[in-house]
């Protein structure tokens, strides 16, 4: 996505605060810096990355390559573990000192619990999961996000600074600025010891990133047993795709590490094949941008049939095996 300004805006003589980017997810930080660079140009400001952690100083210089004019570094063993309490306090201290116009935060779960706490500390507004950012005639940030269950696009305008916004993956495109150098500002901040502490952390089994799949065969609660997923995996394989799922299969049954939808991943494959998914708006919010949507569902009144290109009313336990047979025959 590109940022677009409704009209060229120049900041006039007044100095416009910087556009900051923070994310503990490096990939997302790089994307946000690209967005910060573009947004800062529109405002006549500069862009900056904020790095908080233990041993983060050494990666500061390389952020120029992704668009940062400046990098604020808080490098201290006190920040070795992510803590919304401590990180919000640290970034708020920097913000009070340097007065940025905006703080863009990566919309991971950690980012989404940090940003509002930070905003509250700064008495600032915050917009969650923004998919589009623009500067209006008045030089204010206007964002678009999905509201009301995920089926309505809401345009929201910031009435005061700083603007805090969380932004998911793939909203901005990462760019590389070969020659760009950035200024590194090392800051000392001292914060209270956080009260909430992590006592145990287990890595989830990592699946291939669904966001990159060309074809997604998606399983819903119409799939009765975990073993039945094999059938969908076989179908996905035949189509060079991957298997995804609706929320209950991941969150309730634990069959998948992640799900697709408003509260899960947003995907846009060339083909999305929904098997036994009813098509509640919260699910649609995650796959709306798919190029072609095919649905297999035994209930002719399932809402998925209102938002698909091709719908088959039928039992997935009969249709999917028949489809596998046919695809296998074609391969031969």
């Amino acid at each position: 996505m590109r940022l677009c300004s409704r009209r060229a805006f120049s900041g006039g003589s007044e100095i416009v605060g910087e556009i900051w980017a923070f994310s503990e997810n490096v990939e997302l930080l790089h994307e946000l810096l690209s967005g910060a660079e573009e947004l800062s140009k529109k405002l006549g400001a500069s862009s900056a990355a904020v790095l908080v952690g233990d041993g983060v100083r050494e990666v500061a210089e390389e952020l120029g390559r992704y668009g940062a004019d400046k990098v604020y570094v808080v490098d201290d063993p006190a920040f070795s573990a992510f803590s919304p309490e401590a990180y919000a306090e640290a970034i708020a201290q920097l913000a009070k000192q340097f007065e940025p116009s905006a703080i863009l935060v990566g919309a991971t779960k950690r980012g989404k619990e940090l940003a509002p706490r930070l905003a509250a500390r700064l008495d600032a507004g915050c917009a969650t999961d923004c998919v589009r950012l623009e500067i209006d005639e008045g030089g204010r940030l206007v964002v678009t996000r999905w509201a009301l269950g995920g089926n309505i696009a809401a345009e929201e305008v910031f009435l005061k600074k700083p603007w805090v916004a969380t932004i998911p993956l793939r909203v901005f495109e990462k760019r590389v600025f070969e020659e760009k150098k950035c200024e590194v500002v090392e800051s000392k901040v001292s914060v209270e010891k956080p009260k909430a502490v992590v006592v145990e952390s287990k890595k989830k089994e990592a699946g291939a990133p669904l966001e990159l799949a060309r074809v997604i065969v998606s399983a819903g609660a119409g799939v009765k047993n975990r073993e039945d997923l094999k059938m969908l995996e076989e179908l996905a394989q035949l189509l060079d795709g991957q298997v995804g799922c609706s929320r209950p299969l991941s969150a309730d049954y634990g069959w998948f590490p992640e799900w697709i939808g408003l509260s899960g991943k947003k995907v846009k494959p060339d083909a999305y094949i929904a098997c036994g998914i009813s098509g509640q708006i919260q699910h649609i919010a995650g796959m709306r941008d798919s190029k072609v949507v095919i649905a297999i569902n035994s209930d002719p009144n399932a809402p998925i049939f209102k938002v698909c290109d091709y719908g088959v009313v039928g039992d997935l336990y009969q249709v999917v095996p028949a489809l596998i047979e046919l695809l296998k025959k074609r391969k031969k």
Partner: protein
Amino acid sequence: MRIVVCAKVALDVSQIKVDASTQTPVLSGAPLKVSDFDKNAIEEAIRIREALGGEVFSVTVGRPESKAIREILAMGVDAAYVVSDQSLKEMDALVTSKVLAAAIKEMGSFDLVLCGESSIDGFTSQVGPRLAELLGIPQLTYARKVSVEGNEVVVERALEEEVEVVKAPLPALVTVTREVNVPRIPTIMDIMKASKKPITQWSLSDLGISPEELKPAVAVEKLQAPKIERKGVILEGLKPEEAAEAIVEALLKEGILRG
């Protein structure tokens, strides 16, 4: 244990109609209900009370919708607090959390504040963390398991790449996901009992805040339903083999499969 649950009476988003000519949602008269995850928060609060004793209070900012508040009480909440005010029209998460913080302070001491992961209509996931900051307490978000052990709350939470167990001393704020429990459905008895439970109504002046302190920082400018442009070819009454043929044909036509 004194537990406060923040329960929003939200727009029932599954029932919102879109005006076909303007592609804008019709919000006036849209039905309201207790926000889904807040029912999980209520259920969790009641389970903790059942295990450890104590009291559970709910607090709601916004529309004084008595049916929903009665439902909250029928689920087992001991007393409900509702803050509504003429001037509370344009509420962003900043305003909502300030009002909630003021109300919770007015309600007296507390050990635990429970919120939903997000509300069904606003879906900002902001109010919990903001409230924790305003109350000066730790936050444990996205909890799918909650337990109170001595003077600590312990939470299991699933992030993108890991599952964490986090603990904090009380008082603390926890936001829960849908997976934490299955909310109970009140019985007729529960509903009858609920009619005798107290509901306290507050205005902003009861909480000692003036509308000037509650200026939103973000305003909604426009709501628009995206145009859904799907072909909508629905095939009914086909044999499985015929359905498979039709799907393959569609995949070929759309260039997903090559002929």
